[in-house]
């Protein structure tokens, strides 16, 4: 539950409305999880591409293995930036979620519009003690998800959001 200082640090070039309150970051464990998944998917490909030509006696054909390796290295860096870009802010009447580096997105969901708050935690998430919070409104296009919350924080947020949602509830 680390509250990183208001809209400071890297990449936050003020595309979110400046407000009192604190932008919170997601857990750094999320980055570890994402990178672990990345390695899990790319390592076998790289290994097979690198070792198979050597075993078959044509070592020069191991060079193309550098391509997935380079892609993985690039992914490693990109994941770091993307993960750091996830932020959320609880304001008096709405929740702001900001994310993305290349494709930036800022979502504003008023508390009164929330139909359902969902906290999910898959086996991998639990391994890294993470939880994912998802807000549903009556609009299917609403894309409000916060991955990589600490379970306590996810529960606190869920309870607070449902409470606020009930207090400010409005019809369709």
């Amino acid at each position: 539950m680390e509250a990183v200082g208001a809209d400071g640090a890297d990449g936050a070039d003020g595309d979110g409305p400046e407000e009192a309150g604190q932008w919170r970051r997601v857990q750094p464990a999320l980055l570890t999880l994402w990178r672990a998944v990345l390695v899990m998917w790319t390592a076998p490909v790289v290994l097979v591409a690198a070792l198979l030509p050597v075993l078959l006696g044509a070592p020069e054909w191991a060079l193309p293995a550098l391509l997935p390796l380079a892609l993985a290295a690039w992914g490693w860096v990109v994941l770091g930036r993307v993960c750091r870009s996830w932020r959320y802010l609880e304001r008096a009447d709405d929740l702001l979620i900001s994310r993305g580096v290349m494709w930036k997105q800022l979502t504003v969901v008023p508390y009164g519009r929330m139909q359902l708050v969902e906290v999910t935690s898959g086996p991998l998430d639990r391994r890294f003690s993470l939880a994912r919070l998802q807000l549903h409104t009556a609009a299917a296009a609403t894309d409000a998800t916060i991955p990589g919350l600490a379970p306590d924080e996810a529960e606190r947020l869920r309870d607070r959001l449902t409470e606020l949602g009930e207090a400010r509830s409005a019809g369709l």
Partner: protein
Amino acid sequence: MSTQGEQHGAPHGGTPGSPGDGPPRPGGFPPEGRRLHPVTPWRRAWAPLAGLGALVTQNPERLRDAAELGLVPLLGFTTAVLAVAAAYGFLSWRVTRYRITETELRIRTGLLFRRTAHLRLDRIQSIDITQPLLARVLGVAKLKMDVVGAGSHDELAFVGEAEARELRAELLARAAGIAPEAAPAAGEAPARQLYRVETRTLAWALALLGTGWGALLAALAGIPLMLWLTGSVFAAAVTGLPMAVALWRSSVGGFLTQYGWTVSESPDGLRLDHGLLQKEHATVPPGRVQSVRLVEPLLWRRRGWVRVELEVAGAGHESGLLLPVTTRAECVALLGRLLPRVDIEAAVAAVRPAPRRARWAVPVWWRGYGHGVTEAVFVARHGRLRRVHTLVPHAKVQSVRLTRGPRQQALRLADIHVDHGAGGTATARQMDAGYAAAEVAAQAERSRLGRRAARPDRWLT
């Protein structure tokens, strides 16, 4: 499965002493519910036969096999299929019942898998009555309820014509919050005709649409080309068929469904009646409109014509069309009744175009993009040939999003998306980034205030 899950466990019959559970009042509901019209089974009986026919004709070899069987076994087989289908239809008709309680419409169906749908009356968005040609001959109609989260199964097909009208009146009266005892007696609310699309105007409007001419042109160019290239009539016919369908849809088909389009006002909301062969009838209660689209195709603009489309929460009635063609002034007057606090002229006038540098992001079409805001609505404009204004009342906004792709970041541009309850999104594209960020913040505030001023769900209470 129940469409309203949370209602499933509700005690049968609601509060004690509710009229729905009491002794059946004259014209009221027996406790076990009413049945659909007795012609209903026949609708289901012919379906398997048609399926069989399609299966046989699709494969010519099977057709030959079938012919070799001889006429008598073939007839016998067909009769057997028909009998089984009829029996199934009859039995499923027998177990299908519906009743209106104080808060819900309950439909119980299913021969093997029992399914009970409880549709909450205060969540009804609109009620449509449809009468296909055959149903008109038989004097029956299909009643379709739009409830948030309901599927296509939740329709009453078929009930008697008079009964359908009564049911619609009662459902709408209850949904509006009229006292339950008075609801059956309230009857059909009086309607006053507001607007009728003249046949000549409709024909001209359809003739001036680009899509019909496009399909015709494609057919005129495509079919001979195909014939010349392959020399096969079959190939030409195969390519020509979809074009012919598109042509039919945008011209004659559109004319048949939109013929005699009448909008009338009643305390239940706006009533829409239309159709030459297949009569359709829809009611849009007030306060349920999530978004309005004004569509102005290129060739209509000189005449000042506009098509008005609505988006209503729920499954959405027939393509969301409110008026196939009307003048700007009529459209403003009509929408004034649906959205009383919205000034359409002001909203359209408030639209500001995208900045000039947007031409590097979207070369020709950037001119079409625009965004505007009034006290009551968010307006987004797009389209260059076919200009579309999308209006979302602030009170209906579910969430606001700001997105920026890589090229937009380089050009300091951003898109504003406004999601509304009908599952749609109004997008103001290629706005100045600073302006967009300020607008998103302001929009969140506006929709919060707009909701406070919004009317309650039960519009007569």
